[in-house]
């Protein structure tokens, strides 16, 4: 390391070798970051996902109003939002009173990817809403290791989402590329934090308190035409 000789010129080979290696790291790293965050056309999509709805999992595609929920299964604020308004959203989906699009983001780390992939697998079983509620109810600390694929399968089982097909889907990470596409769509639509909810395309104001007050959230839904 220490090189006190050749004070006037230094060692040009070392210089260019190091500069070259650093440049390689920067170029390759940049390439990987961009590639990983670009939508992949080859991604396998769960049957409930819709490309024109930002790859989200769609309930009642033909209805109005439209509610978009951008969330991360590992995000504590999303758990709080779910605890406040989850029942109301589920009722709207089940009673066919609104179009609801769930966008599971994964920027909190690998366990968010496993959880989101599991959500798509559960959607294929027609059990997305059950899975969604159970995952939030059992949300562990961020990236604590609890949501490995086995952990996701165990939590899903508690919600009644079981079966060889579901387990294979989770273990294979069948929808991992789809999870990436949801994320890059979130970047395109400027989703900077979770949860972010849109009602008929209008972002619910974070300062309004509606995220964590069932009454205030219901007021917005009523204003959007929910009876």
């Amino acid at each position: 390391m220490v090189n006190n000789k050749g004070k006037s010129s230094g060692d040009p080979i070392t210089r260019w070798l190091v500069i070259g290696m650093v440049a390689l790291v920067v170029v390759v790293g940049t390439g990987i970051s961009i590639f990983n965050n670009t939508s992949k056309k080859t991604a396998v999509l769960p049957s409930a996902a819709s490309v024109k709805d930002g790859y989200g999992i769609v309930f009642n595609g033909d209805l109005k109003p439209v509610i978009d929920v951008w969330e991360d299964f590992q995000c504590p604020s999303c758990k709080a939002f779910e605890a406040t308004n989850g029942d109301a959203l589920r009722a709207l989906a089940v009673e066919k009173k609104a179009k609801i699009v769930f966008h599971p983001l994964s920027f909190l780390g690998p366990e968010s990817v496993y959880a989101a992939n599991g959500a798509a697998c559960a959607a294929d079983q027609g059990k997305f809403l059950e899975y969604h509620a159970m995952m939030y109810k059992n949300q562990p600390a961020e990236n604590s290791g609890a949501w490995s694929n086995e952990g996701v399968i165990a939590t899903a089982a508690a919600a009644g989402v079981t079966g060889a097909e579901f387990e294979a889907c989770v273990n294979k990470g069948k929808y991992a590329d789809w999870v990436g596409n949801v994320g890059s769509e979130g970047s395109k639509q400027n989703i900077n934090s979770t949860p972010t909810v849109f009602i008929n395309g209008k972002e619910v104001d974070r300062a309004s308190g509606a995220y964590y007050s069932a009454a205030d959230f219901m007021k917005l839904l009523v204003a959007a035409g929910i009876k």
Partner: protein
Amino acid sequence: MKLPAFLTETRLNWLGLFVRLILGGVIFVAGALKVTAPYKAAAAMRAYELLPISVANILGYTLPWFEVGVGILLILGIATRLSAIFAGSLMVIFILAIASAWARGLSIDCGCFGGGGQVAPGETKYLQEILRDFGLTLLAVYLYLRPHTKWALEPASR
């Protein structure tokens, strides 16, 4: 320029080493914390509302890697003068961006070390962020003026 007698060549070389390691270390860590969370880095970049969303996203994925690169060069002491110019320019751009966010009344975290995005209006730290980046700019200026430092892989750094 005539230097005071106590600023001997040797002492300045040691000072340069510390300056290089502090500047390089801070930039390297700032970049390394962000390369693992590109989605957040892009979100932090968008939160400044200075660039079109697609450009901000690409820059959010790219910039952390450049910080890692220039951080490594400074820590090793290779191309110190060039790296100092790059690092200093980066700091000036950061200061302008933060000042602009402040002036426009945005409530964001600078996202300098990961994180970033909107924060509650009372939780902005614009002044601290600008002062820190100003300090780092001074370090970069010092290395530009005197790139000779102790324990540099390239003693006569350009």
